């Protein structure tokens, strides 16, 4: 019996600026107890598809076609029947639990709310809530907590408990693990699949991360521009995709240990480090050690990946290396010399070591044109030479060719990948020898990641630029890094050549990180 069926569904958003076709003729089905993954990049329409199942779309949306849950047509239902169906038959685990939960009501109450609404005959609501919390492995006494008192992973578990509150037949989970630590992500997904399998609930899992879907779902459908471009068994879509878009998505998830995914050849390097941290510690408030006695070296023309989860101290360490943060103890050296302390000295240092930030949208002043953004550095340093030439050269090096097609544009007119190239060009305009890239591709769509990583490699070959890449993504490290350093709670727990660390990890934490990767 088909639990969920989309029959030629179309969703259009009306606005004074015109119509936006979010979903164009999608047909999918899910059997009872089955699991379906919906993959795609932001804006492809997957969230709209999910919300359409419960008719939760805004008033500006027009629905064509049908959505059937357990045979009943949701698109034609009366409001009364729809309200009864919502949550009792199908529920949603929303993205971004911090905003999807009411910030001023206790989580126990929020879980109890649908129970009281749909099952007024239940007398021991508190008991039901406690049972649900247990099922998602939260301590039952946390029922009195407010959402901001919980961690990200705990909030997701609350969302899961809430979704299961009325024993639905179908659960739709929209990006339930984005913004979560890789380890936490694995545990939350594991719990979700176990619960769903145990109760025989149908699951639709939405994510931009193909590997997550492949590990959790039986089938995966790939969406692009509102249409389904590929639909098949999960492992096949991940490992042997047919459609070009699926291939682009899959390319973002390298198989660690597979030499086909490794784009770097080992080479002998000059052993004298260009940038080094010697026993650097950063201590806040006398007690919290963000960076704990870390020694790290990067050699010329080398790409080192500094891997760790959020809160591991990797960003703090990077800022020390750039001179943006003064370490509490220890020394940062560049070219053998300690970093200057004076502001003039630091400015000189900036010409040698530059930073590429994570979010290219925020990293560019929306009012400044591309030209102004790239020229900013040379202007501040009053570099000699023709400014236009410097800007044009930098843009070409960042592969934005021809340069004058881009100089007049505003960041808002560019794609995410292009913006990141502008940020890189801005760094290159100063002629540095070394780049620090903080999560350079994390905010970009999967299909664009490969290009930016390839650019970093090419910059190494053409300009001799070394790089320290900070990331939580081990796959990225496998693809482009010569060496890997793993950071955990402020300390470097393991370090060495990439092939060695990622295929034969020694430290417990590295092993946990590798094991947490889905679909390896």
């Amino acid at each position: 019996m088909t639990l969920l069926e989309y029959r030629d569904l179309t969703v259009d958003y009306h606005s004074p600026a015109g119509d936006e076709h979010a979903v164009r003729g999608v047909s999918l089905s899910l059997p009872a107890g089955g699991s379906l993954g919906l993959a795609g990049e932001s804006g492809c329409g997957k969230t709209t598809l999910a919300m359409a199942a419960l008719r939760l779309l805004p008033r500006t949306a027009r629905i064509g076609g049908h959505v059937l849950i357990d045979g009943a047509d949701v698109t034609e239902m009366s409001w009364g029947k729809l309200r009864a169906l919502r949550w009792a038959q199908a529920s949603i685990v929303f993205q971004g639990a911090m905003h999807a939960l009411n910030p001023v009501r206790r989580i126990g109450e929020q879980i109890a709310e649908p129970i009281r609404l749909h099952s007024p005959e239940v007398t021991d609501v508190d008991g039901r809530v406690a049972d649900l919390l247990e099922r998602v492995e939260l301590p039952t006494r946390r029922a009195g907590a407010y959402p901001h008192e919980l961690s990200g992973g705990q909030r997701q578990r609350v969302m899961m408990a809430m979704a299961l509150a009325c024993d639905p037949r179908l659960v739709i989970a929209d990006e339930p693990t984005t913004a979560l630590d890789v380890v936490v992500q694995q545990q939350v997904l594991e719990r979700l699949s176990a619960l769903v399998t145990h109760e025989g609930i149908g699951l639709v899992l939405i994510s931009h991360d193909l590997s997550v879907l492949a590990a959790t779902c039986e089938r995966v459908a790939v969406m692009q521009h509102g249409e389904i471009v590929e639909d098949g068994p999960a492992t096949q879509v991940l490992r042997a995709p047919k459609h070009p878009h699926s291939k682009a998505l899959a390319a973002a998830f390298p198989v660690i240990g597979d030499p086909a995914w490794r784009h770097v050849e080992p080479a002998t390097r000059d052993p004298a480090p260009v940038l080094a941290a010697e026993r650097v510690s950063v201590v806040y408030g006398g007690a919290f050690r963000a960076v704990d006695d870390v020694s790290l070296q990067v050699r010329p023309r080398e790409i080192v990946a500094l891997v760790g989860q959020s809160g591991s101290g990797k960003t703090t360490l990077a800022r020390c290396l750039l001179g943006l943060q003064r370490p509490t103890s220890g020394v940062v050296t560049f070219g053998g010399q300690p970093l200057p302390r004076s502001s003039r000295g630091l400015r000189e240092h900036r010409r040698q070591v530059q930073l590429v930030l994570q979010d290219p949208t925020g990293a560019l002043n929306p009012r400044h044109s591309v030209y102004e953004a790239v020229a900013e550095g040379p202007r501040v340093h009053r570099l000699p030479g023709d400014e236009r030439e410097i800007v044009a050269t930098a843009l070409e090096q960042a592969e934005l060719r021809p340069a004058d097609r881009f100089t007049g544009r505003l960041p808002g007119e560019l794609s995410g990948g292009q913006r990141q190239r502008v940020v890189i060009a801005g760094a290159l305009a100063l002629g540095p020898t070394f780049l620090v890239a903080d999560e350079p591709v994390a905010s970009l769509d999967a299909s664009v990641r490969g290009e930016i990583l390839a650019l970093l490699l090419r910059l190494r070959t053409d300009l001799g630029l070394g790089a320290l890449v900070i990331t939580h993504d081990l796959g990225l490290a496998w693809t482009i890094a010569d060496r890997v350093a793993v950071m955990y709670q402020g300390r470097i727990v393991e370090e060495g050549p990439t092939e060695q660390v990622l295929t034969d990890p020694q430290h417990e934490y590295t092993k946990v990180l590798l094991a947490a990767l889905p679909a390896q």
Partner: protein
Amino acid sequence: MTDLAPTANPVDLVAPERGGRSGWVFAALTVLRGLLSLVLIVVLGFFLFRVLPGDPVRAMTRDRPGDPASLARLRAEFGLDRPLWEQFVDHIGDLLHGDLGTSYQFKQPVTDLILGRLGPTVLLTGTALVLAVGIGLWAGSRAAWRHGSTFDRLMTSTALVLWSVPTFWLGLIVLLVFAVGLDLFPTAGMTSPGGVPGFAGVLDVAHHLVLPCLTMVAVVYAQYLMVMRSSLLEEMSADYLTTARAKGLRDNVVRRRHAIPNALLPTITIIFLNVGMVVAGAVTVETVFSWPGLGLLTYQALAVPDLPLLQGTLITLSAAVVIMNVIADLLYRLVDPRVRTA
């Protein structure tokens, strides 16, 4: 009971370390901040009245120049012939005893004058506030929920116009129309001349209260309406309302149980923080309607100018606003759980 195998080492189930001041520490700090403000007000008052005018006695008597002997006598009376820091110490000492000096024009202790006029002001501003808050919050939330409707547009335009009207002028027009033109209400004061005993006296006061109260409400309610409206409009786009709808709740339940309580939180603080505006309104309204409160007292003081009395009213009115601010901070922490762990 669940019979699923537990996850190996779930890392996110330990309660995150959240620093947070305990409630008592926060309350103490807030009150301390208020006291600091009060101290600063006293210092400012001293500076304004003893230091700034150069010669306060000359400032007070500029409309009535007297011979040097009487001026000297006045100076000695106010202790102005002593060194500045001595005056300051005396001033603080007097304040701690509740002595705000003697009024130049009434020849009575300032403290007595202020206490005598406190009641009428509290009556007028209290009534006006309650009405303004009630009407403003109700109209504001209705306007927001029916964003773009005729009601909404009407409310917003009236609020804009009322914001542009000077309070005193509105009072004058109200007086002109209702008291003089239509002869429905008395033109001045809190009670009829000679006073009225018993319950009829209460009605008499109420009769006198109508016009000044109406004037104050008209100007103040618009502010609360706009704040509540924008606060609720902000909440209406929040994601957790979608969650509430997804659970199957009816629209008006979503509004009543989720949107409005959350929108009320910032509104409450703004109500208290805007007491300064209410005080300004009290000064002008009482002057126009000759309502015997602190506002009228301030007006009477500035006419002379009666510097000790003016200083007394400045300190009293400022202290009232400071106290309101302290209450606002404490109240907000009480009702918004997010602030407790900040």
